[in-house]
Structure formats: structure tokens, C-alpha cells
């Protein structure tokens, strides 16, 4: 019983850290985008104000039970994957489920939320939502290929399918996996561009085209939950990459430095590119990223 309580409290603490970091990163993204465009930009805490405002909306509408539950599905994905991704290497601060952190489980729990959310968006009856979702699902099939190639390469090279196991490999050898398995790292980072769905892979949201797609009928508390979930999930993804390829982090400062450095890749790439069509982005993912993924597997087999 005590252990359960300890875990629950740890999970809440982890969630709060992830929320704050994710929100701040989102705000910094807006700030950096603004500075690159020679604007002053919003303050870095703008995303907190936005979520607070959304939470303090007085009214809300929904088109049925699935739309009502949709953001909760998303939250399940974010928090569950947060629970199984180790936040820090020596994990006294954030106890959670991460000793069971299995990569294949992670891959599948990542789909739980989007599918529930997609059903919610489908129930609104808004055609824009459904269009956005078909684009999103199609694009997901695109970037999962290099991502899985990279992960399978790591798994067969180091004979473990758990995140903790891969971190232990790095701790033992003292080399980060991004150096010992460079091709897997390249493929995974290219897949990460798709996962963050910033430009040029922002065809799902496309505000000017399909009115923000899946979220087009959500406002107030629903949008608040979605935005929070998105921030937490961004943190999870970055932490996962740090754990897999950069040897994890001993304390929170190192974690912030590493995740921020990684976060700059999709942010800066998005500033230089314009939106791809869905099939273009799918083909992009099945081109060079998958090629690097295959190289990674080749490397894993040979060495």
C-alpha cells in the first residue's frame, strides 16, 4: 500500500515536471520562431497563459460521449508513456513504472490516445476533423518505419527490448548510443521530425487548410486537456530520445540541457521548410530515413 502511494505521488510529481518543461519548451519554440522572423515574440510563459485561459473558459460543448472522452484518451497515452520512460538515471525522485519500460509496449501505448482522440474528432461530424485524422494516420505509417528500424537495430545489437536495458548498456560502455549506433540515431531523429509534426510535417493541423483538423470542434476544457497532453508528450518523446541515444541524465539540469538540444532539431528544421503534402511526407520518410534505418540494422547484424 505504501509503495502504491509512493508510486502515485511520484507519478504526480513527474507529471508536473513534464507539464512545466513541456509548456516552457513550447513557449520557447514560439519565441525562437518569432526571433528568427525578426519579431519580438510572445513571452516564454505564453503557453501557460493560453492554457490557463482555456481552462477558465466558462462554457463548453461536445457532440457526444466519444468527443467528451477523447482528450482523456490522449492523456492516458501521455501519462502512461511518461510513467514507463525513465526520467532520470538514478531514479529516487520520480518513482514510477519505468522498471517495466518496454519499447514495444511504448510503441503501442503511443497509439492508444491518438486513436481515442480520432474517434472523438470523428464524432463531431466535422469533415475537417476526419480529413486531418486520415492525414495523421497516414503520416504515422510513414514515420513509424524508420523509427521501428532504428529501434529494432538497437534491440538486436544489444539484446534487450527495454529502455532501462539500453541505458544500462550505455552506462557500462560509457559511450552514448548516438555514437556507437550513429545510423540508428540519424533514422530515429528523422522520424522524430514527423513525431513532432512541426513544419514541414504539419499537414494534420494545417490551420489555413482544414481549420486545425482534429481539434476543430474542441474548445475550452477539451482544448486545455489536449494542449497539456501535447506538452507532456513532447517532454516524454525528448526524454525517451535522451534515454535511448544520449545515455540518460543524472540530474534535472543535464536532462534539460540534453532535451533542449534535441528539441532544437525539429524546431529549427521547421523554420526552414514549408508544408509537405501527406504523400510527399510519407515518401520522404520511406526514403533517406528508412535507408539509414536499414544501415543501422546492417550495422547491428555485422557488429
Amino acid at each position, binding site marked *: 500500500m505504501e509503495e502504491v502511494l509512493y508510486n502515485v505521488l511520484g507519478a504526480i510529481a513527474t507529471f508536473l515536471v513534464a507539464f512545466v518543461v513541456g509548456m516552457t519548451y513550447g513557449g520557447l519554440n514560439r519565441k525562437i520562431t518569432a526571433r528568427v522572423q525578426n519579431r519580438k515574440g510572445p513571452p516564454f510563459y505564453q503557453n501557460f497563459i493560453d492554457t490557463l485561459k482555456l481552462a477558465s473558459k466558462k462554457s463548453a460543448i*461536445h457532440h457526444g460521449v466519444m468527443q467528451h472522452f477523447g482528450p482523456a484518451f490522449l492523456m492516458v497515452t501521455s501519462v502512461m508513456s511518461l510513467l514507463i520512460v525513465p526520467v532520470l538515471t538514478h531514479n529516487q525522485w520520480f518513482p514510477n513504472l519505468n522498471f517495466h519500460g518496454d519499447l514495444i509496449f511504448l510503441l503501442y501505448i503511443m497509439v492508444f490516445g491518438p486513436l481515442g482522440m480520432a474517434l472523438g474528432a470523428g464524432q463531431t461530424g466535422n469533415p475537417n476533423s476526419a480529413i486531418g485524422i486520415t492525414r495523421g494516420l*497516414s503520416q504515422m505509417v510513414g514515420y513509424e518505419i524508420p523509427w521501428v528500424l532504428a529501434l529494432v537495430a538497437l534491440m538486436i545489437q544489444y539484446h534487450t527490448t527495454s529502455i532501462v536495458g539500453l541505458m544500462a548498456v550505455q552506462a557500462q560502455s560509457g559511450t552514448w548510443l548516438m555514437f556507437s549506433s550513429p545510423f540508428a540515431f540519424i533514422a530515429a531523429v528523422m522520424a522524430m521530425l514527423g513525431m513532432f509534426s512541426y513544419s514541414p510535417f504539419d499537414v494534420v493541423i494545417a490551420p489555413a487548410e482544414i481549420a486545425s483538423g482534429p481539434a476543430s470542434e474542441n474548445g475550452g476544457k477539451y482544448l486545455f486537456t489536449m494542449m497539456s497532453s501535447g506538452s507532456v508528450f513532447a517532454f516524454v518523446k525528448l526524454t525517451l530520445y535522451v534515454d535511448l541515444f544520449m545515455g540518460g541524465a543524472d540530474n534535472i539540469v543535464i536532462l534539460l540541457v540534453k532535451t533542449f538540444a534535441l528539441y532544437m532539431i525539429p524546431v529549427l528544421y521547421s523554420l526552414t521548410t514549408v508544408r509537405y503534402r501527406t504523400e510527399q511526407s510519407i515518401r520522404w520518410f520511406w526514403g533517406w530515413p528508412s535507408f539509414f534505418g536499414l544501415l543501422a540494422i546492417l550495422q547491428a547484424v555485422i557488429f
Partner: protein
Amino acid sequence: MNTIYIIFLIFLGGAVFTYFAGKIHKVLQDILFLVSILVPAYLFFANVEIGQNVNLTLGGISLSWGINYFSWLFSLIVLGLGSLAAIYAVGFMKGEKRRGYFYFNFILSIMAMTGILLSRDLVSFFVFWEIMTWSSYLITIYNGNKVQSIGIKYFVFSAIGAYAMLMAIVMVHHITGSFLIGDMIHAYPAMALSMQIWIPIMFLMAFGVKAAMMPLHVWAPGAYSNAPMAYTSVFSGALSKMGIYGMTLVLVTMVNHIPQGVWFREVLAWLGGITAVIGTLWAIQQDDAKKLLAYSSVAQLGYIITGIAIGTELAMLAGLFLAVMHALFKGTLFMVVGAIEKQTGTSNFTEVTGLIRKMPWTFLSALLAIIALAGIPPLGGFVGKWMLYESLITSNHYLLVIVIFFASTAAFLYCYKFLFGFFMGQEEKEWAHVKEAPAVMVLPMLIMALFMLVLGTFPGIILNPINHGLQALGYADSYKHLWDTSIILNSWGNKVVLQPILYSIAGIFLFFIAFLTWKGYKNTRFISTKDISSSGEVPKEDENLTFSVGFMQPFYRAVEPAMRRQIDKYYNAFADGLEATFEFLRRIYTGNGQTYAIYVIVFVVVMLLFKDFLF
């Protein structure tokens, strides 16, 4: 008298009485139908002892019937799903024509599948196999549509399989002089190499047809979608598993004993993987729910074939667990389509939209089944998928992992399409009258959905009989080192503990649902699907804005080059080239059982006469 005889007597007598009872009263017919499925099922699980054989001699051929742990596992699928589907069928067939015909063949095919599992000799195995083919063919052409294109295709492929099996049986008999399966297994390691290779190939062809393996899957989409949905859930859920059953037996008892067996396994595993990809890509494109599910069945059977073809302990566990799961979720999904078709009269996504508020229980079971199909935790599909991936990775099939993973990721597309097409979208006036299906139809679906939910956290319930079955086939005990009641492990020692996952997911989900509901409860309002933000326009009552035509177009545009060739075309070209032969075949396959039986007998006689010359 032995229980096995009683079971078969009830099946046969029930089939005949049910057929004629329709003349007296419809309700009597329903009751007889249920009795003749449920009572044998009960007797089977209550009274048939595992490991005990019944021997009898019929016309000089000694037959043997009995059951071991492995076939008991499959009888769980056949009789469990069969019973639920029978209950469903009573609701489904209400007010339909030719109920006697349907019930008769339904009972016969359940009996045939039970018989296959009980057979310990090749003759009764073959006879039951043919009864199964025959009765399923008759149900496939039940509504009289497309008999030429679909029925004939199914029958031609089944016949190819049947002849292959018959040839193998004749070869075996020629060598061993006995029809008993046990004798065949004993004699196999000592056979000549060509026999050692040809007999498994022949058997695998026969089983591959029923398991809808590439390139023998061509018949499946048509036959699955053309049969009444009450039967298709059995057709896809249980009947295809007979192919898996046979394949597993062949692989374990024969192929394992020869050095070339590795190649068999590799080829089969890749065929399974390719089947999964092709089935998935075709399923995404379908606008008809039945076709979509049929192609999806082909794809799912591909995973199962890959699992059993890899053949490590974990892979076998994965394949057989997926087989059980497939029976559950595909049975449910076909029942869902049947319920929708019954209530609305169509199964096309472009016609029906927005049923979620009209058929909530159907939606719930469809949702759970789809989550299980997609392999998303915390439902049972995830356990099977996890074990399959882990077994592929630990046995170094790294490219096959990618292929399988691609198929199962792309499967999300059709999963979403299925749910969206029927239940989501704008509510139309045309379907305002639609009501929830009757309880007889909803209950079986919900029971299976609940079972999938339980299996997601406690897969040990099914892994235990699978383990027993595998032990009966000579595998080592895998309890505790590959699975526990709610833990799954791989051979590298990585594990997933399922209970905390379920509790965390449930906890997080309930917390946020409570948050979303409690926050601003008074100011949260339900609005209709016509009240959407579409540039200030108000959609009219008869205006349906749902996006359902060309639904997965962006994905299809990306994979178009790979889709241009379809295997059907090769077969058609082949058929055109050999039109004369096929014309001949068509004349033979009149759909009349007698002609077929005569042909089989002639074939057997010819084979026996020329056996020395042929082999």
C-alpha cells in the same frame, strides 16, 4: 456409449431435425438449432476425457477418434465461438428466408470442425475436412449472389487443397499401410527425402488454402463477405483456424524432423508476413465493411502463420494466442457488421454514418474488438503482438519484424476507417429510425468483448491451455519463464507486467474523465452533429458533410505503385490461358455434392491403381 458418439449423433440428428422443424414452427426450429450446438459443446467440455481414444473399424479401415491438449485448445475456439455465434444466429436469422438450409449447414460445419479436431486418423480427417468445405461452401452461396465468381473461386481453391491433401494421404498410406496419424508420424523420419519434402508441402497447401495464406488467399475476401455474417464470424474466426491447426501439426510433427525444415519455416514465415502486408493494404481501400474485415482476416492470419512458422516457444505461444484473439475479435467484428446490416440494410461505409448514439452497445463491442485487433494495450491483442515481436527479434528475424510492424501500423488505418465509417460522422435523417440490435445479438458480442478485456490483463487464462497443448506437441514447459498469469516475458529476460498497466490506464482515464465531466458540468452542453463550425454555414437536415468517400486517399497515393499489381490478375490470366481446362472444371463443380463425391472416388481409385507408377 462413448460421449464422442453421442456428440456426433446430436450434431447429425440436430441438423436433420432442425432442417425439418421449420415446417412446424419457427421458434421450435430456433430451439432445436441452439440445442444441437450448445448441448454437444457442453458434453464435449464436461465429459470428453483428454488423451482417451475411441477406435472403431469401418469397412476394413480402422478409425480412431480422441482428443489431446492441443486439439482441446482449438475446440475451445470452435465450440466457444460456435456457441456464441449460434446464439447470435438465432437473432440474425429472424425473419430471413431459408433458415432450415442455413441452420443445417451451420450445424454440419461445427460438427465437421469438431470432427477434424477429434480425428486421429487421416480418413476421418479428410472426410470431416470435406464436410467442412462443403457446408461452408453451401452457406457462402446462401443468398444466391455471385455464385459464379465467389462460390466457384472458393470451391476451386478448396478442391486444389483437398486434392493436395488426398495425394499426401495416398502417399502416406502407400508407405505406411495405415491411415492412423500416429503411424504416419512414426514412419516419417525414416521416409525417403523426396517423400519427406513432398508430403508436408501437400499438406501445407491444403491447410494454407483454409488459412488464407498468400498466394492461396484469393477466395477469402469474396467468400467471407458473401456468407451471412452470423456464419462469417465462425468462418473467419474458427474455420480458418483449422488451417492453422493443421499447419502447426505438420510443422511440429514432420518438418521439425528433417534438416530442410528450416527452409520450410523461413518460406512460411515470409509468406505469412507478405500475406499480412497485402491483406492490410487491400483492407484499407475497401468501402464495404465485410470486404474490409475479410481482407483484415487475411492479414491477421498472416501474423498467426508467421508466428507458428518461426516455431520457437515464444513464437508458438504468440501465434496460438493470436489465433484465439483473432477468433474473438474477428468474430465480434463480423457480428457487429451483421447487426448493422440487419438494422440498416447496408454494410457500406459511404452509406451509413453516425450510428454511435443509436447502437451504443454494438459500438462498445466494436471499439473493444478494434482496440484488440490493433494490438493496443490494455486489451488482449497487445499480448499476442508483443509476444510475436519479441519472438521475431529474439530469433533474429529482423526484416520480418519490420514487415509485420508495417502491416500492423497500417492496420490502424482500416481500424479507424471501420469505426469512423459506421459509428462516427454526421447523424442522418435517413438512419434516424435505426435501433439497437436485439439482445440475442448484442450479448454474444459483449461477452466476447469482455473476454478480450480480461485476456489483456490475465493472458494466463488462455496461455495455460496453449502451454499444455504445446507440451502435448513436445515443447518444453514455458510457464514462469515465458509467461505468468499476468506477466509476459521474452527469452532475454525482458518482461511486461500487465496488472499495473491496466490499473494505471484505468486510473488515469477515470481521473481525466472525472476532470472533464466535473469541470464546468453545468455549462457543458451536448449539441447535434449538424451544429458544427463550417465557416458559419448551417448544414441542412438532408445535407451530410461526413467525409467517407476516398477515405484513406493520402495513404493510398503514397503506396500506389506497390498496389498496381494484384495477385488476382495473375490468376485470371492463368484462368484465361487455361480456359478449356477451367470450363471442364466448371462442368464438374456444379455445386452438386454427388458429382463431387463421384469425382473424389474416381480420383482415389485412379491414384490407388497407378500408385506404383506414380511414386
